[in-house]
């Protein structure tokens, strides 16, 4: 992997933090804009979950990952610790890949 991503993500992430904190300061942002910004994580995380599970390159697929996802959802719903959720989901998928 190239360093480009590391460098630009670091610069960009700091720029956003500073933009609100130092540059804009106490001036108010339009309400609609800040509400939109706060919804971005929900939309993107939803995308990471479904896109990461049901696509392979440019095709839509259902495979072992769907079972892993189901396990993760149940584990997260039962409020298990993050590391347990991650391990259970990964292990389920790995196991299914070995047997199929």
């Amino acid at each position, binding site marked *: *992997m*190239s*360093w480009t*991503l*590391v460098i630009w*993500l*670091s610069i*960009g*992430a*700091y720029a*956003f*933090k*500073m*933009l*609100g*904190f*130092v540059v*804009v300061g106490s001036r*108010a*942002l339009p309400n609609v804009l800040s*509400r*939109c*910004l706060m*919804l*971005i*994580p*929900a*939309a*993107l*995380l*939803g*995308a*990471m*979950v*479904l*896109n*990461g*599970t*049901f*696509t392979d390159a*440019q*095709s*839509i697929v259902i495979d*072992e*990952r769907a079972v*892993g*996802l189901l396990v*993760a959802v149940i584990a*997260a719903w039962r409020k298990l*610790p*993050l*590391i347990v*959720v*991650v*391990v259970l*989901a*990964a292990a389920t*998928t*790995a196991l299914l*890949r070995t047997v199929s």
Partner: protein
Amino acid sequence: MKLRIEPEVRPVVTSALALSGAVGVFALAFGVLAVGAGASVWQTCALSFFAFTGASQMSAMSIISTGGTVSAALGSGLLLAARNGVYGLALSPYFGESLGKRLLAAHFVIDETTAMMTAQTNPRLQKIAFWTTAIALFSLWNLGTLIGAVLGGSIDPQTYGLDVGFTAAYITMLVPHLRTKNGRIAAVSGGLLSVVLAPFLPVGLPILASGLAIFIGVKPQRVQASI
């Protein structure tokens, strides 16, 4: 240094440490997953030190791991980082310090420090909450990343289902957003959009495009707010 902690300050410090411990575990997962996605140990650690914003780091690395371009990874990482700008706006009035100190504090403006600081009622506790969380969380985030990245080198991502490990981590991050109706709408429509668009766009771009889902979520809250 005084080690005696006043009763008023104790719960703030305790919850800052507990929160940081949990985040440290998350960092461990990030380290393993990032190295599995193809980043070096140094790159993984540099991301945690300099970018220091969990969800952005994770999403960028998983787009790389699925074969997406650097621009797509950067785009999604930055979109997720944008909310820190909003946190900065919220926290700015609490900080009266010099520009230098504000520039330093800005690096630590993230979900957890914002939540901890805004939960306090007086200016002194707010400061303590912010800095205790910032220092403890930053330390454990970087330590966790390093350990995870070193361990991750000996693991084959596909065999151990690490790709689904990423997904599982996202689910736990997604949970708090599902508490509001708008959050649920944004999450579901963003998710569906990213799958439906997959056959038509290069890898990584459907994730970016899912950001459009926020416009589906905005209007209903407007109506709710006026009630």
